[in-house]
């Protein structure tokens, strides 16, 4: 159904009808599956990469300038490539590791490769906000670097880290939708195949509504969590 053969209201009504949702529901499951899996990898790898970038920087607690420059350059290269290109570039990798280059599982590589560098930079920024004096105090008490990261840097930066992760998750959702058009499935795939190629505007609308709701939900959860911690610490 589209606006050329039906009225606007008929299209809207159909967008919430059972026929459309029979197509949308499995796509939601795929999208959520891809997003959650990518979230987990991005959180762990991005956090580690961001902290490595920060710690090995020239003014960091364990300076390794050459190493830092190389890693920084790799991150910048990955960040400068459009997600679409990254998806195409990582397809052979998926084929090598999991044996196929289509389906939700296969696109995880592409999603992780394109989202980890971004989240790493966000982590770097968040932790940089921790006042130097606190790091000094921790060092003056004889804190080894690993404990400094676990006991001071991450807890002190936590509200900001949560906000950064929220941004990252929303970016993951949008890249997931993009990956849909390269055989990954999910809401992006449905929107392109039905909404764009076959003029099924009702399905397109349904996909958009679901995506908007998911993003709003993510933003709300991230904001609330961050605010809760700030309030608990009496920082406002």
């Amino acid at each position: 159904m589209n606006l050329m053969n039906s009225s606007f209201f008929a299209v809207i009504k159909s967008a919430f009808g059972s026929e459309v949702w029979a197509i949308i529901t499995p796509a939601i499951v795929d999208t959520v599956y891809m997003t959650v899996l990518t979230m987990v990898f991005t959180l762990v790898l991005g956090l580690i990469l961001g902290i490595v970038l920060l710690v090995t920087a020239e003014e960091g607690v364990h300076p390794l300038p050459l190493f830092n420059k190389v890693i920084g350059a790799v991150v910048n290269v990955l960040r400068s490539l459009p997600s679409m290109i990254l998806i195409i570039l990582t397809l052979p990798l998926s084929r090598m590791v999991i044996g196929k280059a289509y389906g939700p599982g296969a696109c995880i590589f592409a999603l992780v490769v394109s989202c980890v560098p971004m989240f790493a930079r966000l982590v770097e920024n968040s932790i940089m906000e921790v006042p130097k004096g606190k790091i000094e105090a921790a060092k003056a008490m004889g804190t080894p670097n690993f404990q400094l990261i676990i006991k001071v840097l991450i807890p002190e930066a936590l509200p900001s880290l949560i906000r950064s992760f929220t941004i990252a998750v929303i970016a993951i959702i949008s890249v997931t939708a993009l990956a849909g058009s390269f055989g990954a499935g999910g809401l992006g795939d449905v929107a392109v195949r039905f909404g764009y190629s076959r003029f099924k505007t009702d399905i397109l609308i349904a996909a958009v509504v679901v995506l908007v709701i998911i993003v709003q939900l993510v933003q709300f959860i991230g904001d609330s969590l961050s605010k809760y911690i700030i309030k608990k610490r009496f920082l406002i």
Partner: protein
Amino acid sequence: MSIGRSQVDVRNEKGFDSSSFITVKDLYKTFHTPVGQVDVLKGINLTVSKGDIFGIIGFSGAGKSTLIRCLNRMEVADSGVVRIGEQQIFNLSKKELNLYRQKIGMIFQQFNLFDSRTVFNNVAYPLEIAGYKKPAIKRRVEEILGLVELSDKINSYPGQLSGGQKQRVGIARALANNPDVLLSDEATSALDPKTTLSVLDILKDINRKLGLTIILITHELDVIKYACNHMAVLENGVIVETGAVRDVFFNPASETAKLFVKINANFAVNQWVREGEAI
């Protein structure tokens, strides 16, 4: 001028070993900045006795902070010797340095408490780092918070405390692991006069009770007069005068010391007295 046995004042005579506990010899430090070199410390010599409260005074840029930060190697000096107890601190490996720092407490102008931790957990932090078990940490934290009179704030966050309370948590945190020395980096400079007094009272109290050696830097002569036994005057990276506080205060020899005394003796009031306005 050195602070040998002859100058030890009354408070310091009973029981404390007055032979030099902290020795700083020929300490040099130059910062290399994009606009050129800055010689911050130009040959510092200093000895501090065990159990002393030693004040270092100087105007902004004299090198006070750099000097005190050299004592726990937060700043690495270019040359010279820093010895605390039997420990030569420039030879320490990274690991040894961390162990050494666990025995040197430090308090700061901006308190530098961890906002993510309650008062209890802030004070517990150095004990966690030193590897104590939970029950031992709990016992020690409660004891030390009693000492700084903050037992009722044990579950508060730093965000809920006033400046004076924050600094008392800072002191408790610095003392938790039974340090040999307490370094105070302008610890009262952000506090109002009344709070300053109460913080200094706590420092004097712990010095008396625990025999803890305290080195404090400040730009206020009042702080030194109130809390210290001995003092050094730092001017442009050089110690120009050192001795018992009373000696320096009544007989300042250097220009900087004279200026500090002049400012401190309330020169405005003196002028009114001279002009016959007051009394």
